């Protein structure tokens, strides 16, 4: 069916709204039960699709098809507790559901009308089981604007999106508004690019619209490449139409007729959902020739990237779209002047686009109500690392890191101590505890040596070594560097080599100065954002955790016990019961011992796999500094020495 005007959209909304209404906690009087199965990548990977099939089979068996509907939905963000299944009415939130639990769910919940207590979310502090999603603190503490449809609608059904006022703003825009008016609203809203740099979106649109060249293009950057970041993926998987709608609005504003979504091939679910969404939008006349019966044409093509991190940089992305090697080029000219095929091109990130329809629907004044002085609206973050509630959250700009980590994120598991939080992925910095109460926006993060980036957050606990962490990120950026400019190609390699040296215990104090100097030069001299931000993990850890570096260099110890070159496993003789389990577990044959005598680990043979640690019933195997072990070895005092003589001496 072709949609030709707002009336058609409204009719569709009428038709589907009752179902949506129920999912939002209202009565709909239909007497239907709806089961929403999370089908985001995270839950898919924990077999949510098997749950879906199992549910369908089970309902069939019990003849419940008439009254119960099962459908896919997007990510709710509580990935730690997936796979997630929600049942409406009641907004009952079942977590960690397994395919074999489906029988019980159907029997107890649907047939008997009782909650399946054991599958409900259990609150950490109180141990209480909480049935409704509305009472779970993780959700209560958030402000879901961009993610408003994720977990609510079926992303594979355009009509459900329309029922959530979808495509209404597009229709309003092309039927009733001039491009300038729309751009003005976007500008006034204060929306800034969510890809990381925070460039004012309205200004970008204005610049591209002002170009007197045709054709123009609209591009969506869905090349989310930070390790541990999955905001854009979740939006594309949960609410793909919001991006399509925004791109069509953008095209109308700047005068483009063709759009490209550059999405990585590693996001198969997102790609599939986008393909379905584009297909449905074309069928209904919301993409293609003559949108909504007007003369405005706009279509979107997908471009699959091979997963190079640098392709998230806009000029590299443009090259990749055109089939060339993904390498950045100097700007100016900016993509707004010369982009795809040398023509003016508007590039925005997925999350930026996802903000557009709602801003236009609810007005810039409303949107201004969220955020800080310089940064308006909300931000989606993905939480990963040493945090209880790994997942996806959305909070207003200006929320403090403490709220994010300890309130919403639930803090660090295992009672471990918080050490730092890494924001902005490999391009960001590590923020220590003292800045946890800062309200975060683009500027405040920059001030403390990190960046907003696309919104990945990785929590670091006392178990992590900051030098090792910097090494990890440098390994990533060095591997992902396109190799074009000298500082990034060679400079990051040299940084990495120095960091490796330090983690292996061969660092010199002088290396710290070279690290710093070189990092600053790389930041200054690199061609693109990747190189310019690559030293951030080094610079921030050097500035906030210098003592850890010094411990590695001077004392040749790794305080967190991570750097394998700097510690050795030793047997605590007091605790050892000489059971011999450790020796059996050791594949390297490094552990020897005799009955009733403490076992010993030969540091020369030990590969530090920690298999013995896992096997020891008495926690008698402990990490000691390598230096200590060597001293002991020389003195022949302590266990763990390799030579026959020293053993004999004992």
């Amino acid at each position, binding site marked *: 069916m072709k949609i030709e005007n707002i009336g058609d959209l409204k009719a569709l909304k009428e038709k589907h709204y009752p179902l949506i209404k129920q999912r939002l906690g209202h009565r709909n009087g239909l007497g239907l039960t709806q089961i929403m199965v999370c089908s985001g990548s995270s839950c898919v990977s924990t077999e949510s699709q098997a749950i879906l099939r199992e549910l369908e089979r089970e309902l069939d068996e019990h003849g419940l098809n008439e009254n119960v509907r099962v459908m896919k939905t997007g990510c709710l963000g509580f990935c730690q507790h997936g796979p997630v299944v929600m049942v409406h009415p009641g907004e009952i939130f079942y977590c960690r559901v397994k395919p074999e639990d489906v029988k019980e769910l159907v029997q107890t919940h649907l047939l008997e009308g009782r909650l399946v207590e054991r599958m409900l979310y259990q609150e950490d502090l109180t141990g209480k089981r909480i049935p409704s999603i509305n009472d779970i603190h993780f959700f209560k503490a958030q402000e879901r604007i961009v993610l408003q449809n994720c977990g609510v609608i079926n992303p594979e059904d355009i009509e459900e999106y329309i029922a959530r006022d979808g495509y209404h703003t597009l229709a309003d825009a092309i039927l009733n508004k001039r491009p300038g008016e729309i751009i003005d609203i976007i500008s006034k809203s204060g929306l800034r690019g969510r890809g990381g740099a925070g460039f004012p979106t309205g200004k970008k649109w204005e610049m591209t619209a002002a170009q007197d060249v045709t054709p123009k293009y609209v591009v969506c950057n869905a090349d989310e490449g930070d390790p541990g970041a999955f905001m854009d993926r979740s939006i594309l998987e949960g609410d793909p139409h919001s991006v399509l709608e925004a791109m069509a609005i953008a095209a109308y504003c700047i005068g483009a007729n063709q759009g490209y979504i550059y999405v990585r091939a590693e996001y198969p679910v997102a790609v599939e959902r986008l393909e379905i969404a584009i297909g449905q939008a074309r069928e209904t006349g919301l993409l293609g020739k003559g949108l909504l019966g007007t003369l405005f044409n706009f279509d979107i093509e997908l471009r699959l990237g091979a997963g*190079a991190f640098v392709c998230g940089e806009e000029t590299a992305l443009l090259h990749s779209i055109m089939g060339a*090697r993904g*390498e950045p*080029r*100097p700007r*100016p000219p900016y993509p707004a002047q010369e982009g795809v095929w040398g023509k003016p091109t508007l590039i925005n990130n997925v999350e930026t686009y996802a903000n557009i329809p709602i801003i236009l629907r609810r007005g810039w004044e409303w949107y201004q109500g969220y955020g800080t002085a310089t940064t308006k609206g909300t931000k989606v973050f993905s939480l990963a690392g040493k945090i209880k509630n790994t997942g996806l959250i959305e909070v207003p700009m200006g929320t403090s890191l403490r709220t994010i980590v300890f309130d919403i994120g639930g803090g660090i598991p295992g009672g471990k101590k918080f050490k730092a939080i890494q924001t902005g992925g490999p391009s960001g910095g590590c923020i220590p505890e003292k800045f946890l109460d800062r309200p975060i926006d683009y500027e405040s993060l920059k001030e403390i040596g990190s960046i907003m980036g696309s919104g990945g957050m990785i929590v670091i606990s006392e178990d992590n070594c900051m030098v090792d962490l910097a090494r990890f990120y440098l390994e990533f950026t*060095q*591997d*992902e*560097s*396109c*190799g*074009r*400019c*000298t*500082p990034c*190609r*060679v*400079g*990051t*390699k*040299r940084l990495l*080599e120095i960091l490796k040296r330090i983690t292996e215990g061969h660092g010199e104090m002088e290396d710290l100065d*070279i690290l710093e*100097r*070189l990092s600053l*030069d790389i930041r*200054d*001299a*690199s*061609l693109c954002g990747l190189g310019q931000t690559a030293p951030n993990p080094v610079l921030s850890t050097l500035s906030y955790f210098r003592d850890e570096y010094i411990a590695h260099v001077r004392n040749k110890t790794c305080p967190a016990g991570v750097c394998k070159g700097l510690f050795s496993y030793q047997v605590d003789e007091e605790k050892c019961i000489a059971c011999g389990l450790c020796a059996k577990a050791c594949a390297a044959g490094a552990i020897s011992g005799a009955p009733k005598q403490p076992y010993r680990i030969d540091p020369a043979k030990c590969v530090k796999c920690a298999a013995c640690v896992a096997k020891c019933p008495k926690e008698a195997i402990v990490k000691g500094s390598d230096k200590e072990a060597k001293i002991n070895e020389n003195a022949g005092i302590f266990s763990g020495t390799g030579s026959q003589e020293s053993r004999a001496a004992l």
Partner: protein
Amino acid sequence: MKTPEFSAGPVVRRAGQLYDNPEKKAEKIRLTIDGREIEADKGMNVLEAAHAAGIEIPSLCYLRHINEIGSCRVCLVEVEIKGARVLQASCAFPATEGLVVHTSSARVRRVRKTMVELLLSDHHRECTTCIRNLNCELQNIADNLGIRNIKYTGEMKQLPIHNKNSFIVRDYNKCIKCRRCEAICSKVQEVNVYSAINRGYDTVIAPAFMQDLSQVACITCGQCVIACPTASLTEKECIDSVWEALEDPDKYVIVQTAPSIQVTLGELFGYEVGTVVTGKLVAALRRLGFYKVFSTDFTADLTIMEEAHELLERLERGYKLPLLSSCSPGWVKFAEHFYPEYLENLSTCKSPHEMFGALTKTYFAGKQGLDPEKIVVVAIMPCTAKKFEASRPEMGTSKFKDVDWVITTRELARMIRQAGINFRDLPDEDYDTPMGIASGAGAIFGSTGGVIEAAVRTAYYLTSGREMDVLDYEELRGFSGLKEAWVELKGRRIKVAIAHGTGNARKLMDRLRAGEQFDYAEIMACPGGCVGGGGQPIFGTREHKEISLDYRHNRADALDRIDYSKKLRRAHENPAVKKIYEEFLGRPLSDMSKKLLHTYFTPRGESPGFDFGGEKGRFAGHVEENLHPVT
């Protein structure tokens, strides 16, 4: 013969002019560089604007109009944007009205030094034994920046050196990833052999799958060698083999020099670009011990005779047209790879130095009573493609390899230095006879437009009995490097066209493919023709800021002056040519001519090293030296 000296030679309007009307009035802008307000042309980048004002910004990856990608980061300058000083690559940053630039602040100097140190930390620094020692842009910049130690040390690439083909050596361990080879190969020559492979530190600029150049559609033109700032790309040197032959008392080593050598060799001994050093060149070769010193210009005249007759024959008998010139082996290989359906259009003439070799081992050997087995022909060529051409198995129809060794202008200069010859003090000497006698037409073979002009002069004379007026070319639709003209031959108006640089050749050939009609076209692989050949002098020292490309114009002018100064300006008037037809060949296109002076061509495909259709689509391993062993 004395080296002709000219103050300002007469202006010769010839087809080959590289830059047509370069003095376009550009709009001016004003900007501040290092506190000085300067004027620059609108559209210039900061590096050019500074250069025009006498401020030199060091750079490595920059190649004017060809590679302005800002990747080496050596040309960084501070630009004031909204009150902040931002580092920008001056080669890629446009000079705009009111811009404020600092090219030598402490920060700029520090970062620049770091960049060069980083490059050096991954560069095999064997300067003293390097072929580009004292002529290396990286070495030069390191010296200028006063780099005395390298703070950054670490892994250094250890990749095998590709030196198995007969023309170009690739040493990845000296590559600084400036991408100039890639740019010139793809943007100017449009051959696209090179691209970046791998990522990060492991990035290399190489042919697909890091194959040897002999295994890909490389046309062996050597423009990449000219573009390379270091010794990562160099000609395959064969000086030692030439020395060995010269030492051998049993051998008669006969040398021939290509037309353009006489106008470029001087550059390597401190002469102004465009100085004609023919007499000293001959004297130097004699002192090196060559048995006879001949000129390829002679066989260039012969080529003109053969090709002019071929053109007339094709016109008369209605054979395939257009006739495409075949004297540039780079272009020939280009056609073999990319336009195999036009191989029948190529003139069957061998290139002049191969004709020369064939005649030396037959005609000259017979005349002098020498055993051809004992003759070694050495060709001094501006060209790496001729190294490849000499190794073609079909170049030996006289039962002997036509040309034994091809050495470039650069290699000859090295030989002269090795022999301790003070080039500048040499007297002017004349070529030996008979194969050293040449007309002005032979000389202009060395620059674009020369071949066609010479051939048409002769064809015109042959058909009308009159000498022809100066050809008046029109630039083809704004492509400099692609021109056309109309000539009347045998009462028929024929259309001739010229292209230099295979990028332009591609444009011309694509128009042909699209159905456009030409009768005769001259195509040279290198921009500017042989004066811009891949074997010509390279400027890597601080005195020469511009790359060799900019010198081609002056060199071409020098060839024009030689032509202009000669009494003998038509190939058909060359007495030695007349004589060789009388005594040996009979007439142009005779059976003897066809046997010795003509050749055939082989379609090679666009991906010769791969067999996509074959078993498992595996690498076919077609290596040049399998066909013809390189000793």
